[in-house]
């Protein structure tokens, strides 16, 4: 499989300027040969990830792309210290361990807002748990809510908000305690395509403002290319990182970028890498056309 993906010709991606800020960056997160085995109740073990290695540098937006069940969420949670790994090493800022709880932000696929609290109270949850100054945090929460385009809903309850609005609030919450890094686990996967595009655009706006280091899990190749400085491609379970592709389109990136020749070439290349591991005859990569409809990856 590695051979197949290596043989794919990589389009030129050095023409239109450098990612975000250029310059040398120090290592933020290093994942070395990490494997995760779930022991099933019936004695049958299932391997979720096998020998995963990659790194994330300061201020970098890195996406993990892969089909469902390739273990990308497992890896993300392991990096956040929310899930023990079976073997390998996760080193966050030279500590030799995963990221420390309370120092990073987390966005889940579901907004995970607590329904008994108002939007504002939900956004200040990190301050409450970490024991930060509440008055200051409320002011910051209001600013963040404005940044994510949520105004006038501070005192509303999550149940009164649309899915997209809830996810905006959850993004604001992840940023409240000025985290060193943000982990996002398919944050827009449950949203409709239009809301999703809006959220991707919003995320770029937020990134311009805050320059967070982000590890972003998604199964949308377009989304990954659009948002990332680097895309890591994972094969189907047991997942491994089969390619590490720098994306250097100039920012800000608009929706028009998806019509760009190089964007489509990249998309095709990533699809070829992914679909080679999927064993689906209908997705024969030799006849795949980048201009064709966006195939869903869950065909496995």
């Amino acid at each position: 499989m590695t051979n197949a993906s290596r043989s794919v010709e990589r389009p030129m991606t050095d023409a239109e300027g450098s990612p975000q800020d250029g310059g040398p960056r120090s290592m933020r997160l290093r994942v070395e040969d990490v494997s995760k085995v779930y022991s099933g109740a019936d004695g049958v073990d299932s391997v979720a990830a096998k020998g995963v290695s990659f790194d994330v540098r300061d201020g970098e937006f890195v996406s993990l792309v892969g089909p469902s069940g390739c273990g990308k969420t497992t890896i993300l949670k392991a990096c956040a210290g929310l899930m023990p790994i079976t073997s390998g090493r996760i080193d966050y800022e030279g500590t030799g361990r995963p990221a420390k709880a309370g120092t990073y932000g987390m966005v889940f696929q579901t907004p995970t807002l607590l329904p008994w609290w108002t939007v504002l109270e939900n956004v200040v949850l990190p301050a409450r748990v970490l024991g930060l100054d509440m008055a200051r945090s409320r002011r910051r929460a209001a600013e963040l809510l404005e940044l994510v385009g949520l105004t006038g809903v501070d005192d509303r309850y999550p149940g009164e908000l649309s899915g997209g609005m809830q996810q905006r609030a959850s993004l604001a919450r992840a940023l409240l305690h000025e985290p060193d890094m943000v982990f996002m686990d398919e944050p827009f996967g449950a949203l409709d395509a239009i809301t999703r595009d809006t959220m991707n655009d919003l995320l770029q706006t937020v990134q311009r403002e805050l320059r967070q280091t982000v590890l972003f899990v998604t199964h949308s190749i377009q989304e990954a290319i659009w948002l990332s400085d680097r895309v890591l491609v994972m094969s189907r379970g047991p997942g491994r990182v089969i390619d590490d592709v720098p994306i250097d389109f100039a920012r800000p990136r608009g929706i028009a970028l998806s019509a760009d020749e190089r964007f489509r070439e990249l998309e095709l290349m990533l699809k070829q890498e992914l679909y080679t591991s999927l064993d689906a005859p209908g997705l024969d990569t030799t006849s795949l056309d980048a201009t064709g409809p966006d195939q869903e990856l869950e065909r496995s």
Partner: protein
Amino acid sequence: MSTSPADLATPAPSTPRTSPRRPGAAMHTLRMRGATVGLIVLILLIAEVGSRSGFISDLIIPAPTDVWAALLDQWQTEGFWGDVGSTVTAMVVGFVFAAVGSFLVAAVLILVRGLEEITMPIIIAIETMPKIAIAPIIILWLGFGQLGKTVIVGLVTFFPILINTLQGLRVTNRDEYDLLRSLGSSSVQLFRYVRLPRALPYIFAGLRVGAVFALIGAVVAEFVGSENGLGALIITARSQFNVPAVWALLFDLMVMGIVLYAITSWAERRLLFWSKEQAGT
């Protein structure tokens, strides 16, 4: 960091919670309520006619008008409200103690690792036992006074509330747990911010069952032996073949039950405005 458990779930007075209804819906509700009242009137009418005509013995079902007369008579009898007070006090005090006690016990069982697993078989065994059957022993121990029946009320209401609370505290939402853990929350914080609010719908289900049990517990305790209270009055009225008075007392008990239920569901609506599973009115 300064929230008390009470403001975990502050209600939203400004929020329009009731879903916008179609204009026809209010009319429909009104019609249905009218039909309910009509049905009650019809049943009372049948009882009245059946009893007055001698078709049904008034030892079995007295005429509703006689029951009404007995009711008015009781309300003016000296000492009657003292009996009501005795029953209500036993019921309320026993219920409150059981609610607070079962909540504290549940919290300890959940927070101390392994304790719940060890004690659960015992709790279930006790729950399965008809606790009302302990009433004679409790009365024997504690006497015919207020204490005996209060303890009986507490005993019968404690376990249903405890079991519901434990069930509620076991509810887990993976993402909510991960969210709190990602912030490095302590188990007490996790309990306060997520587990307790998530458990509230279950706790209230337990409280509603408990409220019904409290009434049963108080009355049965008074049946077994009590100096006063509505249960004792029922025994007395029955021994005098004063059937209308027995029915009148049953009516009083029903009103008490409805009031208790209304209070718990009012509290539930205020605290659980966010929950989709809350009880109807």
